[in-house]
């Protein structure tokens, strides 16, 4: 019975099938909100309100011609989409929704997830590097430069609730306000929440941080030479990364997904959609900044802001307000 549950967990919910389906739905939500904020209608024709458009896009890409540049490293070129997709799906298994065992929820799993979520950026850089084209190369170096800008504030923001909860287990951090009875700690993390949403936006490479794949500057960035199946995998990876990132932020800052399969599922959908909606608002309200500006912005504002949050949490802990 337990084995069946584990198989269901890995393959169906919240594993591969659920992640693919839900993340494409989130992409639809994001596109629709973004379009409405721009006075457009967004996807309309595939499924109800265009809900199946992201799936249709991926299916169409899968059926397209797959071209590998002559000078590219064939093996690495084909391996990078798989590597990044595998790492984000694995990270998604640690989102604590249902059937928590010592396999998918343990002390320190937040570090594992943060590590797994960093792999796609490196895969993207290597994808650009092995494509051997000026645009890919430029995009790839931008991916890496951007990584150094947002990764530290992202980790700091994620770890402040962990310090507050006194645990490095995502499920425990999420349910801390409930189990300890300290409801008021949720709004305390507001600064870290904002930093986490902004750095997640940078991780997802969306406006205003879509510098590595800025269309008008470097065409497609590291993905310039990708087409067909490999590009489809990269797109799916980006969707799932958006789901996992938003679910992680929602779990840690918005009170987790406790309450069994059904209640947990509803909470997951609502809270994750909320984070995605925030991401769309940020995307609609800004212009793309430059690579030097994101480095300055991260280290001048985001990193100190998360340190201030750290200090607040430490002071609260020191004065024993949470006991």
């Amino acid at each position, binding site marked *: 019975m337990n084995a069946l549950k584990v198989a269901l967990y890995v393959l169906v919910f919240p594993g591969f099938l659920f992640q693919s389906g839900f993340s494409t739905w989130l992409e639809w939500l994001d596109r629709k909100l973004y379009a409405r904020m721009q006075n457009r209608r967004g996807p309309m024709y595939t499924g109800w309100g265009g809900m199946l458009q992201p799936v249709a896009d991926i299916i169409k890409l899968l059926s397209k011609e797959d071209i590998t540049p002559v000078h590219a490293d064939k093996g690495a070129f084909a391996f990078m989409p798989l590597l990044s997709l595998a790492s984000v799906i694995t990270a998604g298994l640690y989102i604590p929704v249902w059937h928590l065992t010592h396999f998918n929820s343990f002390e320190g799993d937040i570090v594992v997830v943060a590590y797994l979520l960093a792999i796609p950026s490196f895969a993207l850089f290597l994808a650009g590097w092995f494509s051997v084209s000026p645009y890919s190369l430029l995009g790839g170096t931008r991916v890496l430069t951007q990584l150094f800008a947002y990764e530290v504030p992202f980790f700091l923001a994620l770890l402040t609730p962990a310090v507050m909860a006194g645990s490095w287990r995502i499920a425990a951090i999420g349910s801390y306000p409930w189990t300890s009875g300290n409801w008021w700690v949720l709004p305390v993390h507001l600064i870290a929440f904002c930093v986490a949403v902004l750095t997640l936006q940078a991780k997802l490479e969306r406006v205003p941080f879509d510098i590595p794949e800025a269309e008008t500057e470097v065409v497609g960035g590291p993905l310039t030479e990708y087409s067909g199946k490999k590009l489809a995998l990269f797109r799916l990876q980006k969707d799932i990364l958006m789901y996992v990132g938003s679910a992680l932020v929602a779990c840690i800052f918005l009170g987790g997904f406790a309450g069994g399969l059904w209640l947990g599922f509803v909470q997951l959908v609502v809270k994750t959609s909320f984070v995605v909606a925030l991401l769309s608002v940020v995307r609609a*309200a800004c212009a793309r900044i*430059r690579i030097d500006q994101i480095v300055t912005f991260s280290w001048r504002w985001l990193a100190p802001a998360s340190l201030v949050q750290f200090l607040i949490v430490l002071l609260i802990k020191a004065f024993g307000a949470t006991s």
Partner: protein
Amino acid sequence: MPETIHLPMGPQHPFLKEPVKFDFDIQGEEIVGARMNIGYNHRGLEKLCEDRNYYQCLYILERICGICSHSHTTAFCQATEKLLGLEVPKRGLYLRTLVCELERLHSHLLWLGVAAHEVGFDTLFMLVWRDRELVMDALEEISGNRVNYAFNTIGGVRRDLSEEQRKKILAILQPLMDRLEYYANIGSNEPSFEARIRGVGSLSKQHAIEMCTVGPFARASGVDRDARRDAPHAAYPFLEFKVITNEECDVFGRVLVRVLEMVESCKMIKQILDTLPEGEFVAPKVMRRVPAGTAISYYEAPRGEDIHYVRSNGTEKPERVKVRAPTMANLEAACESVVGSLVADIPIAIASIDPCYSCTDRTTIALTDRRRGRRVTTWGELRQYGIDWYRRNRGVHF
């Protein structure tokens, strides 16, 4: 010292709306050299005009540019009217100017949207283009067309404006002014947008004069030059307007100059509609044979000063028509202004002149006489070369 990489941009690239080739030398993200090459969109329209009569030329010149189509016909009509010594009725001049200013509005709105898109601000892009529809509707109301209005004719305009149409156009002005105020506010206050346009693509006043730049591009560098005031044409001598200049010398200044110019255009349109003279709108009798002579006409197109040179030999067809579109004057300066900035600034710095390559494209063919070592080509050789080239490269047989 980092390695210098050659970064080609164009003839096909997402930041270009039309084909042109830029070659940049970059070190890391910094640009150390810039070169450009035009000629991918050459259509030989000037040559075509030599085979048509003056009225047919209007239709060809209208198609030089999709955005400022009215500019080219106005400039050509003015030159021809000068040759004919023709007096255009005042109502005709006013109506011509009305379409000129509406065209300036829609061209600048289009540019603002494109500029926002170049820096990834797609929300502004979508909203600006939505509001541009107001102007397009007005143009459609006047001429029946959204883009190539076919409104000008030699000696005036082709259609009159009814009282009902006048009211419809007046009605769009106030909502448009409100939106323009909002965009001026976004342009100068939205932090991420401002961060991308301030200090980018700098061109000093001295440099702007030396490079012979024109239009809003020059005015944003503090060059107080506007053909509407300096070389009076159409109904501009009868209208009151300010020439907008700015001392910022960068893309930020160019955004502000264009937005404020649009406000001026709205005011001018109001003046035109309020003081529209009664009477004929086109000169009653126009000779088809144009007396021999040459004429130059200046016109302030949305992108800058547009110059047409027309030479007549006394027949129904012009002997030579020469167009100097504003992009031609600005492109060199824009290409040079990106050196020293970052790769990310290329699209917006180039786009800040509102480039129109189809207006600009020229071909130069330098054939060397191998036998005698002279760079000389006779007309017959050039013709034969063209025929051979097309047969070889395009499979076209004449």
